[in-house]
């Protein structure tokens, strides 16, 4: 059964999310979710239902995320998952888009006086098991002929707690995660993130392989947000743009020209709904992880291509 159809039938999207990564997906004490990955699911919901709230978030640890997707328990895995070849080919997954270009980095205690990952000879490193991080770590130290000791934990929580309590000298995960986790340290300012990025970590939503329509919806939801940012459409000015703009790009995005939405299996104003109800990519980024958030992550690689970054939305036409 096509995923989109079943979603419409169910009336909600089952969204596999991180059980707690600040800025990407984290519930508060009342169970309200916030974050970049979470908002992506909201964007999907907006496109499909014209309501950003028809999402059920299902917290998944690194360990059970793929099986949850495979078994159909979630419709989409929007949980800072690295797109790698083996995952794409052997796990039966598809990665329609990359919503965050990341790379693995290290965090250490300031007082160690370490300024480069190359100085980590003989260090203990805490990492989360079952991640690409774990593999990259092994590669990096091997390539640089450094000795190290790995301490792996089942959940991100435990991993960071172990680092924070001094079990390890260094903590490694995707750079975005480093910033997010640092907020939870007992003394955030005592930790620094090392400059080295040791891997490419293209993070994005994943869906089951073999459902091209659903793949497209997910892919173009992301691109719509990128195109909106590029075209200057924001949550605030979307209504106004809808009425006043003559720019054909804008009109195509907002659905007043062409029938691109219908071709996706959605309504014509699908992208308008996303922007109106959730926002464009830049807005979502800044709100959740950028300057509007405690994480204060720079756009960097995630800036639009036109601003020197890698985020490049193929044209809607």
């Amino acid at each position, binding site marked *: *059964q096509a995923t989109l159809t*079943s979603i419409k039938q169910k009336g909600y999207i*089952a969204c596999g999310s991180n*059980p*707690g990564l600040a800025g990407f997906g984290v*519930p508060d*004490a*009342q*169970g309200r979710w916030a974050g970049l990955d979470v908002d992506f699911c909201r964007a999907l919901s907006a496109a499909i239902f014209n309501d950003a709230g028809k999402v*059920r*978030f*299902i*917290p*998944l*640890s690194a360990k*059970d995320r793929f*099986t*949850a997707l*495979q*078994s*159909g*328990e979630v419709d989409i895995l929007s949980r800072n998952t690295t797109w790698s070849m083996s995952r794409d080919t052997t796990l039966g997954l598809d990665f329609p888009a990359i919503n965050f270009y990341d790379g693995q980095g290290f965090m250490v205690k300031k007082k160690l006086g370490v300024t480069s990952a190359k100085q980590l000879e003989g260090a203990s490193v805490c990492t989360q098991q079952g991640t690409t991080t774990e593999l990259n770590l092994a590669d990096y130290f091997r390539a640089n002929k450094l000795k190290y000791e790995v301490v792996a934990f*089942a*959940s991100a*929580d435990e991993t*960071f*707690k172990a680092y*924070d309590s001094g079990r390890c000298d260094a903590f490694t995960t995707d750079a975005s995660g480093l910033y997010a986790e640092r*907020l*939870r*340290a*007992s*003394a*955030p300012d005592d930790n620094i993130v090392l400059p080295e990025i040791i891997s490419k970590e293209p993070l994005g939503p994943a869906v089951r392989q073999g459902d091209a329509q659903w793949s497209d919806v997910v892919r173009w939801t992301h691109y719509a947000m990128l195109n909106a940012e590029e075209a200057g459409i924001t949550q605030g000015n979307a209504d106004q743009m809808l009425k006043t703009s003559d720019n054909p790009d804008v009109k195509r995005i907002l659905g007043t020209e062409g029938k691109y939405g219908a071709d996706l299996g959605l309504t014509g104003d699908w992208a308008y709904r996303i922007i109106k109800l959730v926002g464009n990519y830049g807005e979502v980024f800044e709100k959740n992880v950028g300057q509007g958030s405690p994480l204060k992550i720079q756009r960097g690689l995630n800036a639009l291509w036109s601003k020197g970054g890698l985020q490049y939305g193929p044209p809607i036409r």
Partner: protein
Amino acid sequence: MTAGPQTLPLSFVRRDAVPPAPAPALVSGPLAWLRANLFSSPGNAALTLIALAIVVLVAPPLLRFLVVDAVWSGQNRDACRPEVVGHPVGACWAFVADKINYFVYGSYPIEERWRPNVFFALMALGVGWLLWLDAPRRDLGAAYFFVAFPVASFVLLSGVPALGLAKVPTSLWGGMLVTLVVSLVGIVASLPLGILLALGRRSRLPIVRLFCVIFIEFWRGVPLITVLFMANVMLPLFLPGDVSVDRLVRPLVGIALFSAAYMAEVVRGGLQAIPRGQAEGAMSLGLSPWHRMRLVILPQALRIVIPGIVNSFISLFKDTSLVSIVGIFDFIRTIESARVDPAWAAPTVVMTGYAFAALFYFVFCFGMSRYALFVERRLASGQKR
């Protein structure tokens, strides 16, 4: 007679009874008690000193931590930081007080928290009814506990919009609520299932017996945590693609099957203790096999194994803490996740969280084990009731 002056002649009759004398100080009284119980030999005295040393080493710091230096109120971590308050800080109970709602209900919506409260009350009623041996109509109690209460709880907790109760997805449940739900489901499901398995294992039908033996030995042979992983990861895989099972229900299934296997062995012990004559007596009265079981054998067998059942419930209750490993927000998990809250980052917060959790489990488990002991004694003394 050559007997000595004080010794007894061959023929002797006592004329004056010797009255009972009070014991010398070394035989009874506090001094004697001390001597007999603490200093009966040099080795024993040494042991006493060692034990006393342990007590002195452990008890005062423990007391100091838990009570004397403890912080009882405060709004955030400053209340529990020694450099802020200016004296050593023990347990940070203020932290527990601040988070207590989270520990009890998890993320259950605040405006709906009366529902868990009603659930707790219903549960207390059912447990009390069942455990109070002289309670009236305990058969009704059992029906209530094993049928009415689970249904009511389900309706209450997860909500039925038709009845005006908003749906509360299980992902919001947490804390003690989840711990209690998981263990109750464990016991409610495992008892009937365990009885069936126990009967099956004693069946004359070889295939039935074989299945039951394999089932029981399988679950008893693997660690619970692998069962939980399996339930979590593989259960959805074994179901048709479009059926999805709630994330809380999955470990519940695992726990229920797991504890059913243990329960089966407990019940089997009870069945074995019933003499054959009971079945024969029932048979000779013309009772059908089903009636025989239900009216004669099971009531007796279950009564005998109440302590065993309570004990396996204790294990079950403790084991529910493992669901936190597969990502269910049970009580332990809420403690774990609360303790990293930067707002409460203070040196003793971690210990306080664990101490609180330990206290919670201890009170429940110790209470139940005392209860089991009480029932056991009463059964032992009460062959005559």
